[in-house]
């Protein structure tokens, strides 16, 4: 095993591998930072290029796009409150507040360092623990996934926003919105009011942009901020002291993100929210979270990037892709003549280790590329408000349209923009709604599967046979503690 690793390590140290990986990272970052373009689209479009490259060059190229794209998504989230993916929602909260305070460069630096730290640690953990993780992955079936998702939703509702009751209302609303469309198990149409446009449900991206970015645009216009001091807006770079202050949070989030990555079907969105919630709960000053707290950015970014390592495990050891990104990677592997699955390590051990090592190297390369390009991005906000605001509106509409070229999505964008403005003025936090909307379908699916597995009695199935029961038992005291702390704990909590 160690010999294979050493051989793989040597294979990864190639100049063309590094070069293509850097190109991938840069391309991914650019695409990811444009609202409406997703990392997944970039990977799918550039996939054929990897067909014509050697495995050890082509696959790292795709990995570069992936990693660059995830960071790219947090750039508009921080700068103009426009999260292009669910994973960047948690980042946008404190990140955008920091930008408003003229600290956009600090926020982007923190996002970069936390991302690289989270990703590198989880990749190394994955390389060492590959086979134990594979065993663990197998333990998660629909009942367990349902229990974990339910727990996640309750934690998010209990910890986000200022008022747990308002959060819960918003989450319920988000869950209801997620039910609109076709029932994923039975194929029955629900709440579509007979409209074909709603048959596939409400699309996430227009909702995200509408509910987060448009209210910000509106408030800037209403406040009529003409007198921003432009020169001061970019702010200073992150200091080492600030990074060290957040290190504990970054490590905690890395552990949470890695854990979330092991559970198939959870993903980056849950990881980011869990990391954020945990940091807020552990903090002596939870009231600063949501008001421009560097720790908030660090917590979300370290967690969502730490998911990346373990998601490779089912792909490499079982040949089963856990999400769309790994499905594209599977295609790249197979087209190269490498068949992920039980025999991959025996047949192609060195190549696999080379690819894993390349994942770690990609992070380090990205540290350099990201660090050099952040000044360019952060300067965006120094554009005059009278130009920036039309530009943001254009990004919002153009991004929504390019997402899938459907004019109806623009109506959804505007509807959620208006909803976001009303919710903001009524002091309702939209985050729990978005989380309910994103996690609702997975939870419903897992519940339906559990019901199908047990022949119609999901509750009995939980309590008797599965580790799902264990997950529920473990979750109860955690949730109880969180709620208790929130309601009666520190009176300072706003």
């Amino acid at each position: 095993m160690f010999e294979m690793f050493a051989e793989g390590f040597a294979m990864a140290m190639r100049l063309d591998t590094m070069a293509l990986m850097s190109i991938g990272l840069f391309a991914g970052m650019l695409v990811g930072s444009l609202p409406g373009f997703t990392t997944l689209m970039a990977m799918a479009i550039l996939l054929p290029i990897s067909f014509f490259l050697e495995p050890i060059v082509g696959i790292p190229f795709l990995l570069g796009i992936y990693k660059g794209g995830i960071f790219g998504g947090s750039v508009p989230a921080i700068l103009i409150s426009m999260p292009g993916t669910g994973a960047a929602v948690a980042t946008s909260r404190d990140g955008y507040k920091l930008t408003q305070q003229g600290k956009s460069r600090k926020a982007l630096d923190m996002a970069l360092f936390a991302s690289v730290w989270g990703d590198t640690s989880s990749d190394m953990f994955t390389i060492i623990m590959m086979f134990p993780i594979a065993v663990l992955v197998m333990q998660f079936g629909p009942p367990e996934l349902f229990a974990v998702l339910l727990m996640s939703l309750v934690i998010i509702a209990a910890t986000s926003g200022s008022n747990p009751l308002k959060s819960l209302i918003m989450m319920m609303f988000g869950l209801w919105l997620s039910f609109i469309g076709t029932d994923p198990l039975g194929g029955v149409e629900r709440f579509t009011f007979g409209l074909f446009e709603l048959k596939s449900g409400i699309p996430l991206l227009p909702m995200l942009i509408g509910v987060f970015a448009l209210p910000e645009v509106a408030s800037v216009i209403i406040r009529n901020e003409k007198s921003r001091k432009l020169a001061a807006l970019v702010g200073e770079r992150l200091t080492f002291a600030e990074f060290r202050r957040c290190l504990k949070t970054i490590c905690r989030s890395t552990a949470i993100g890695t854990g979330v990555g092991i559970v198939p079907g959870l993903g980056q969105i849950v990881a980011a929210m869990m990391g954020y919630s945990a940091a807020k709960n552990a903090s002596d000053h939870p009231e600063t979270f949501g008001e421009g707290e560097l720790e908030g950015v660090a917590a979300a970014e370290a967690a969502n990037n730490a998911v990346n390592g373990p998601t490779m495990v089912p792909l490499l050891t079982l040949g089963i892709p856990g999400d769309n990104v790994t499905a594209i990677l599977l295609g790249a592997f197979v087209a190269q003549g490498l068949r992920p699955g039980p025999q991959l390590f025996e047949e192609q051990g060195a190549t696999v280790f080379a690819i894993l090592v390349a994942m770690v190297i990609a992070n380090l390369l990205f540290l350099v590329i990201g660090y050099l390009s952040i000044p360019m991005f952060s300067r965006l906000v120094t554009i005059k408000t009278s130009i920036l605001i039309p530009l943001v509106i254009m990004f919002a509409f153009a991004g929504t349209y390019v997402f899938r070229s459907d004019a109806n999505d623009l109506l959804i964008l505007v509807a959620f923009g208006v909803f976001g403005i009303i919710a903001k003025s009524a002091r309702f936090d939209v985050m729990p709604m978005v989380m309910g909307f994103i996690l609702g379908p997975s939870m419903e699916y897992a519940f339906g599967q559990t019901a199908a597995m047990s022949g119609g009695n999901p509750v009995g199935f939980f309590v008797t046979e599965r580790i799902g029961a264990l997950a529920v038992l473990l979750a109860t005291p955690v949730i109880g503690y969180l709620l208790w702390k929130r309601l009666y704990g520190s009176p300072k909590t706003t």
Partner: protein
Amino acid sequence: MFTTFAKKSLAVLAVTGTAIAASMSPALAEYPEKPITMVIPLGAGGSHDLNARVITSIIPTYLEQAMIVRLTPGAGGQKGTQEVANAPADGYTLLFTHNYIDMLQQHVETLPYDPAEDFVTVARVNFAPIAVAVLADSPYQTMDDLIEASKADPGGIQMAHSGNWGALFVPAAQMMKSLGMEWNLVPYQGGGPALQALLSGDADVTMGFPSSLSSHIDAGTVRILATAGPERIYDDIPTFTEVGVEGDIGFMHRVVLAPADTPEDVLATLSEAFVALGEDRTFTRMMGRLGENIEIITGAEYDAMRAEQSVAYEALVADLTSQ
């Protein structure tokens, strides 16, 4: 290595370049004069997406135009299908779909288009035969064991599939109907998760395409009990016909369709390009690596098969939903 890459990239660039140049010159109205969009009514990263990426990276050689993939998932494939049904019938918008979306859905629900009336076949690119799989240490050594156990305990055998009325569900339903047995069909979000359910012991049996099962077959973790069709794929494993399943079932056909009123000469140009693609060496090599066959059938020949599929699926749906 870099030179081959450079050559290929240059070739792609050259094709794209001429495509852009051609689309700007109004003269020479010979089809195709601008890039062609191929709509996939499914999400990114699936087997259709992969097949399409291979097709579109090579077919420009034969069409002298770029072919662009557009993923339009939603409503079980209906969103993308409707988009192409409403697109101009000029050969610049095509649909890359499969037989279950194409011919089965109309019998399950009301569609905003009529698949038989609104589309014609450009080409069937390939087909994948389904296989019945159990774990290597499963008590069911043969398909007969499984059938016997299923009949003895109706609904007691857990079968993991990739979603209702999908590529793994339909053959399972047809098999149940044909053999007079009952499985408990549990849906998963795709073939991958269904296979994982088998591996983790949540399911007793699943189905899958040999291309996605091959690494597990070789590693000895999964055993195949039967494969679709009248001809054996593996020497020692019986076919569906041999175990008593009737009808032409268990094949997923990947097809390129065009809006119904597309002119004959345009369809002919497209079909010829697909036939030529089927003999391209780079194409065959790459599809081979993906584990896909290449069996090009064009135009009317596959349209006849579509009509047959529709009749069979209508009977199946009527049978399954009447209970």
